[in-house]
Each structure stands twice: as C-alpha cells, then as structure tokens.
C-alpha cells in the first residue's frame, strides 16, 4: 500500500450500490484528481457495512468519520472541507437515533464490530477488585453448575466437544488433556494456571480453575505469576481472598462438599519458566529448567503427581462453555481452530491494544480494519505473529487466515497472541539479531543446541549488522537454525529460530544487501548506512537540523540543506523528522565518497 494520507471506504454492498455509491465513487475520484490529491487519497469499495438504510455510506480513515446518505452534490464539499481543510462535515455524519450526537456508533467501527468478546466479555465493565460485580455478570454460575449438576466426565465431555485448544501457544485440545489427567490414579492432583495477565477480571481465572479441578479431581491449584506484574498480583490476591470469604474457594464450596483452594506461585520473571516442565521446577523451588517429555505433566507433574497446566486464556473460556455449551463455542472460528483468540496488536498502527477475534479472521483484516491501518507516513513491511519468537509474515501474504494450521505453514506461530507490525523503519536482520540477544540471555543452558546455537547465531548476525558478513553466512545460519529447532529440549530454543528462519525466507534481499553491499536500507544498522539530503526534494525548512543531536545539518532557510558526514552518527532522527522524503539512506561506501566531496568543497572555500 502506498503512503496514502487518507483512505475512503465506500460501501459497495447491494443497498448502497442501488443508492448510487458507484456514481459517488466516480465523482469522488474525479474531484480528488482535479484537486491534485490522487497520490494522497485512496478510494476503496468495500462489502456491505450493514447500514443499508443510510446508504450510500462512506467511511473516511484514519479519522473514522462515518458519512451517510452521501449525494453527488456532497462530494466536492466533503473534499474541500474534510479532506483538504480537515473539518468533517457534521451535517452528513452518522447520528445515533436516540440522541442527536454526531458520533460514530460501536457497531460502525471495525475496531469494535469485528471483535467477538468471549473471554473478554466483561472488558471495561467491572471493577476487578469487587467480586459482587463479577457475580452480577453471571460470575461463578458456571462453577455452581459444574459442582452441583455435572459429573467430571460430563464436564470433560463438554470441553472436548467444544474443541477448545490450549491458548498458551501449542494448541493442545484442552478436553483431551483434562481427560488424561482425570484418568490418572492419584489422591493429590494439581491444576496450574500459567500467566495471570488477564486484567479484565481475575475471578474468571479462579472460576475456570474450580471447574477444571472438579473435572480432573484436584483439590489444590496454583496461579503462576510473574513478580514483574504487581497490579495483577495485587488484584489476584484480593480476588482469592474475596472468593475464600464467600466460600467459593476452600472447603465445601457452595455446600457441595468439594474442596479446592488456590495459591499464588511467584516467578522470577524467567522466560524459560513459561515452558511447563520448567514452570513445575520453579514451583518446586528448583532452578527453572525444562525436562524431557514424556512423561507429560498430566501423568507426572508437580511433585510427580498428575497435573494439568493451562494458560489463563484457556481458563477464561471455560465458564462460558459450561453455561452455553460446546455448540455455542463452535459457532465462531474454524473447524480445526474453533472459538476466539485474544491478540495484542502493536506497532505503528492507528489502533493498538487488546482484541478478541474469531479464529480464521484474516491477518489483513486485523491490521487494516481493526488496527485501522498504518500510521501516517509508515509503510507495512512485515507482521510478527506469535510473540517475541514468532515468525515474520510479509505484506504480500497478509491474507492468511489466523488459525493454528495456516499460521504455522508460513513459519509463524499463534503462540502468545502477539501481533507486532513492522514498518519500513524496521530492519529484518537487526530484528532477528535482537531475538537472539533475548533468547541467548534467557536460555537456561541445559541443552547444547539452544545454549550454543543461540549464541553462535547471535554472533553471526552481529557480524552481519556490523559489516563483517560473508558469502555463505545465510546458508550456515539456516542450516544451524533448522538443527537447533529440531534438537532443542524445549520451546525456547525451538521458537527462537523462527525469526531468523522466516526473515531469511521472506527478506533474503535484506541479508544480501547487508552482506554484499554493506547497505542497511532501513537505516537501522549504523555501520551500514549513510544519510544524505536529496537537494531537489529538500524544502529548506530546517526541521531535520533542529532534530539532529550532533548539529550536523546546516543550510540557509528555504535552501537545500547538507549533512556533515564527519559529525553524523547515523541516528536517523533527520529521516524520521523530514516530512518531504528528502533524506536518502545510502550504503556505507557512500560515506567516504561524500566525505571526500565535503572535504574538497571545504578546502576550496578557504
């Protein structure tokens, strides 16, 4: 997508077309062309907005202004007042029927209307420190039903039928996991919640765990929390205390005779302890290092007892499945990846935050509709899907449906649900290098493939970003990364390979450019770029000179400016400040050339 300043979505659904939206489109195109704005304004025809009675419907992004009943006569006014002068035409904007407020409604804004809130159904609606508010919104009804009306087998059957897959990353069917643990023979079983960062409401975790405990026959549960999240810990502690006081935790819950209590287990913020066997070691007060599987924790887990470990999002889905049933759960999502998934949308998008969407939604819909597209001036380069060790999906593959299967085929993972958008300001080589800085630091050191592999790959990538890359490096890194992925003991070593493998797969030209041409075109690797001002484009506004921390830019007002290569530290501030695209990024070799020219010119002036 070009660097459009404005995108106009014209509804091309049946209703709006009948009302003349195609003619509106033509009129709009002509008007924009005649005002010389064609390169700044993009016009798209979309599918039905569902607001047929108010058509033709036009939504202007990134402002998200919703125009209704647009006529051909309105077009020049919209272009003049809104697109050029920045003043939306109130007369044409959507007005909520109840009260005459010219504000868009929730149902009209993709950020909201494309989400399906299930785990997050109480988002923004209840005080996380008040159990009564949770109960007011059906809280603990599912636990009551599970404890008073259902047998463990029935509970497991419902969860199995729903097809719920563990939301921690691996996507193991939850019902099957619970079933294996339920069949194990032991008096002391455990249920553990990995991660606790669900800030909407801590009680949903407790309720999910009560139901799970009943299903597998456990009486003790742990919530594994990172000490680096004090607010979450504080709220969880309050929640557990409130639940105990109400008799929803402890002995004889709700008078049913079922005992179950929960304790917080605090971690030392080690990445590897997200791996379930390392997590168990950590709770047992040992150094968090993974162990080979089998045996799996459902057979031999905490203190060698059968243990179910699920992540917080999995537990958050359980109460609604119990209350509404497996069929309801399957009503959204895909056959193999039913239900919804929570994602954290981040990067230079217009809307970022926490979203919950049906599995199977396309990544491009998440980025462009929910995310509102790229921020002004930025071009999308890749999307990292899965978290810090997810793979990169390039712009041309953005239509991928987000499911466990489809995302894995492209070399990424659903993982922790992180969707991080990368732009033209990101260097893919540098990004892969950063992952190894993180992974080699967090590697527990137990298995050589990860311990040594992450370090070797880090050194190789460091070399490439500092200009010491050699022909053959890419092949060596690819081979090594594939080996480490196959032989590492746990997911840390395995997934840490995703960024380098996917960046080589989709952005090989960036590696070639770094190795052969000593050129980082994104201007990130300071040793491999030169910043210069293109005289014909420079308007002499001086913004770059003011942004430069070394005062390396000089020039007269309204005259093309110059960058002093002897002072420039390649920080890229000028490039990020310039509104006219007049700063170029050249290879390292350009620096010496420009320095020569610069010195000669200075010599002549004296």
């Amino acid at each position: 997508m070009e660097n459009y300043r404005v995108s106009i979505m014209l509804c091309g659904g049946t209703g709006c077309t009948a009302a003349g939206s195609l003619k509106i489109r033509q009129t709009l195109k002509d008007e924009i062309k005649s005002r010389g704005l064609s390169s700044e304004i993009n016009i798209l025809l979309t599918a039905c907005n569902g607001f047929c009675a108010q058509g033709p419907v036009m939504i202007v992004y990134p402002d998200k202004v919703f125009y209704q009943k647009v006529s051909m006569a309105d077009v020049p006014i919209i272009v003049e007042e809104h697109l050029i002068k920045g003043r939306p035409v109130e007369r044409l904007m959507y007005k909520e029927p109840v009260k005459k407020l010219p504000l868009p409604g929730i149902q009209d804004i993709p950020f909201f209307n494309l989400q399906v809130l299930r785990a997050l159904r109480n988002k923004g609606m209840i005080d996380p420190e008040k159990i009564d508010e949770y109960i007011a919104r059906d809280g603990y009804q599912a636990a009551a039903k599970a404890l008073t009306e259902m047998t463990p087998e029935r509970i497991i059957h419902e969860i199995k039928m729903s097809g719920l897959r563990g939301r921690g990353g691996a996507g193991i069917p939850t019902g099957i996991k619970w079933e294996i643990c339920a069949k194990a023979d032991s008096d002391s079983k455990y249920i553990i919640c990995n991660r606790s960062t669900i800030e909407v409401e801590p009680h949903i975790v407790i309720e999910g765990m009560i139901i799970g405990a009943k299903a597998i026959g456990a009486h003790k549960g742990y919530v594994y929390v990172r000490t680096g999240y004090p607010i979450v810990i504080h709220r969880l502690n309050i929640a557990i205390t409130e639940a105990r006081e109400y008799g929803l935790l402890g002995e004889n819950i709700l008078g049913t005779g079922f005992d179950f209590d929960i304790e917080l287990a605090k971690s030392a913020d080690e990445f590897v302890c997200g791996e379930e066997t390392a997590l168990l070691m950590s709770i047992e007060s040992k150094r968090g290092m993974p162990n080979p599987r089998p045996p799996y924790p459902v057979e031999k887990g905490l203190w060698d007892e059968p243990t179910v470990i699920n992540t917080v999002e999995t537990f958050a889905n359980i109460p609604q499945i119990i209350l509404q049933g497996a069929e309801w759960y399957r009503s959204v999502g895909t056959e193999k990846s039913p239900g919804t998934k929570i994602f954290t949308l981040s990067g230079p998008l217009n809307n970022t935050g926490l979203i919950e969407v049906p599995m199977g939604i396309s990544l491009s819909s998440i980025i462009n509709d929910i995310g509102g597209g790229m921020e002004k001036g930025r071009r999308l380069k890749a999307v990292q899907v899965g978290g810090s060790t997810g793979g990169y999906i390039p712009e041309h593959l953005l239509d991928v449906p987000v499911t466990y299967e489809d995302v894995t085929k492209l070399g990424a993972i659903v993982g922790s649900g992180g969707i991080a958008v990368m732009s033209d300001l990101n260097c893919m080589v540098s990004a892969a290098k950063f992952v190894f800085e993180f992974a080699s630091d967090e590697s527990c050191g137990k298995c050589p493939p990860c311990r040594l592999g992450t370090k070797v790959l880090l050194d190789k990538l460091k070399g490439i970003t500092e200009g010491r890359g050699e022909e053959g490096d890419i092949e060596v890194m690819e081979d090594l990364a594939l080996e480490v992925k196959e032989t590492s003991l746990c997911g840390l070593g395995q997934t840490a390979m995703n960024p380098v493998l996917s960046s080589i797969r989709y952005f090989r030209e960036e590696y070639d450019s770094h190795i052969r041409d000593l050129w980082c075109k994104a201007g990130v690797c300071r040793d491999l770029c030169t910043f210069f001002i293109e005289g014909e484009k420079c308007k002499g506004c001086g913004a770059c000179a003011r942004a430069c921390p070394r005062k390396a830019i000089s020039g007269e007002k309204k005259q093309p400016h110059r960058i002093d290569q002897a002072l420039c530290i390649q920080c890229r501030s000028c490039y990020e400040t310039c509104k006219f695209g007049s700063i170029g990024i050249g290879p390292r070799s350009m620096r010496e050339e420009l320095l020569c020219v610069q010195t000669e010119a200075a010599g002549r002036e004296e």
Partner: protein
Amino acid sequence: MPRLTVDDLKKIKEEYKAALTLREGGARVKVTVHMGTCGIAAGARKVMEALLEEMGKSGVKDVIVTTSGCAGLCSREPMATVEVINESPVKYVQLDGEKIRRILREHVIDGKAVEEYALVMGSETAY
C-alpha cells in the same frame, strides 16, 4: 461475608444489577474510569482523582463512579465511559484531569456530550 449457597449467587446478581443499573429514582449517570495497567501507565489515576475532586466541588449526587480493568484500546488511554440513563454510553479517550472535569460539567451534569474528546458511542456487549 457469609459463605454462599447457589441461591445466594443468584440473589447477589439481582441485587447488584439493581444497584449498578441506572434507573428512575436511583443513579442517573455511571462513569467508569478504565484502570488496566495501560490506563494507569497513561495517567488514569490522575484522571480519577480529578473526577472525584470535581464531583465533590459540584455537589452532584446521582452519579455512580466506578473503575474497570483494561478496556482494550490501549493506545488511547486514559479512557472513561459515561453512561447517562436512557442513552448510549459514550467512550472518551486520551483524557487528562482537565478533560474529565469538563466532561463532568458538560456531559454528566448538563447532559451534553463533549464530542471532541469522544471516540464512539454504544456498548460492546448486548447485555
């Protein structure tokens, strides 16, 4: 707090819904200041303080002020939702002390939403 029975759960739900619902003779307006980590990091506590202070000054009585966890649109925090009886809730974004004071005076007390601070109106869940 007494230990609950299953029936108690239903009773609490009904009582609480009555208390939190806007109705004639009860509260007329509900203001929710969203306080997830994102909101707090962006300054939601100051927004809450300013709101409570301004409420004290104005002497307004029929308003419920409450809080919640993360509202989901982390890039626009601090956020607050104002719901006036019989009207759609309005979501306000990128707030500070000044803005929330103005919202209290103009929207909560005088009934006119402050459009320039508002993002959208409506509720994300049907119930």
